[in-house]
């Protein structure tokens, strides 16, 4: 009896290891929690994309629940999620764009603001405009402070201006219902 128990130890260890490694097959290496959750929005002073004279700071998020969507016209997945974002806006959600351009190299800066604005206007008139306004992250500093790894990414910001959720990838009905809906409804009621 004791001998059987002894032989079961390696079997048990093997099974444990197998289960652990098997789970690894289905884990998403890109899925790591943002370290900014529950923290206030980082400080920033950035212009409006369409009206460069106008500037925003982190205080603009106080008082309402906001979806901050990081995007760019060069980003294909962003174009795919735009119609759904538009639908969310039609349902009354407050969506703000954080726009950044890939072609603007802070060390050189070859693209004019007018051209960026034209590209954005074209894209939005074609696919629908879900944004209340767009913040222009000229040198991608705010993106860096937010821990953005690429586009699209979306942050859910509560009425106190705190980041409550960070989603990497596009927003679609499945993601909205599984990840955002419950928390969003909770935050709106507060």
């Amino acid at each position, binding site marked *: 009896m004791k001998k059987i128990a002894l032989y079961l130890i390696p079997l048990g260890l093997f099974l444990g290891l197998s289960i652990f490694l098997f789970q690894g097959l289905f884990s998403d*290496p*890109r899925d*790591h*929690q*943002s*370290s*900014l959750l529950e923290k206030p929005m980082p400080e920033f002073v950035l212009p409006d994309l369409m009206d460069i004279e106008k500037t925003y700071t982190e205080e603009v998020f106080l008082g309402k629940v906001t979806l901050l969507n990081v995007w760019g016209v060069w980003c294909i997945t962003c174009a795919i999620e735009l119609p759904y974002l538009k639908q969310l806006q039609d349902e009354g959600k407050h969506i703000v764009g954080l726009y950044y351009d*890939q072609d603007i190299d*802070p*060390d050189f800066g070859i693209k004019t603001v007018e051209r960026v604005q034209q590209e954005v206007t074209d894209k939005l008139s074609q696919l629908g405009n879900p944004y209340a306004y767009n913040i222009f992250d000229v040198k*991608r500093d705010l*993106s*860096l*402070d*937010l*821990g*953005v*790894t*690429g586009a699209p990414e979306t942050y859910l910001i509560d009425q106190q201006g705190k980041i409550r959720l960070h989603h990497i990838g596009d927003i679609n009905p499945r993601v909205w219902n599984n990840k955002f809906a419950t928390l969003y409804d909770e935050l709106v009621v507060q």
Partner: protein
Amino acid sequence: MNRLINTFFILILVCFGNSVSATEDNFQFDSPQQNALFLELTKELRCPKCQNQNIADSDAMIAVDLRRKVYELLQKGYDRDQVIDFMKQRYGDFVYYQPPVNPMTIWLWLLPILFIVVALAGIVMTRKRQAPEIDNEQLAKAQAILERDE
């Protein structure tokens, strides 16, 4: 045929292209020490977008931005730990190749030691159990047999 050659060529590029470092930025440093620190940090910080590359090796936009940030921070007089903390605050522990020691990760260090201890204990236990099986009487018998053979 032409297509096949093209595919082959692309494969070669994909396989070996990575070994060429992507760093082509022109950063000016005040001192060689600072330059060395920059090279060290960009090797140890991990690109959040391209999982298995450090930011020195990657040409993703985020890696370019992070390299410039490291440079800016060094110019501002940040030391090594401060730069790493700055990045960790934004991109999590993920961004640094050396994992922190916490209740979750302590097993990375403890498990090998535990394994060795348990294995040693196992060996000692089995040795002890075998030891009394040969007593003096058996030894004498064996000796007798050996002597007889001679």
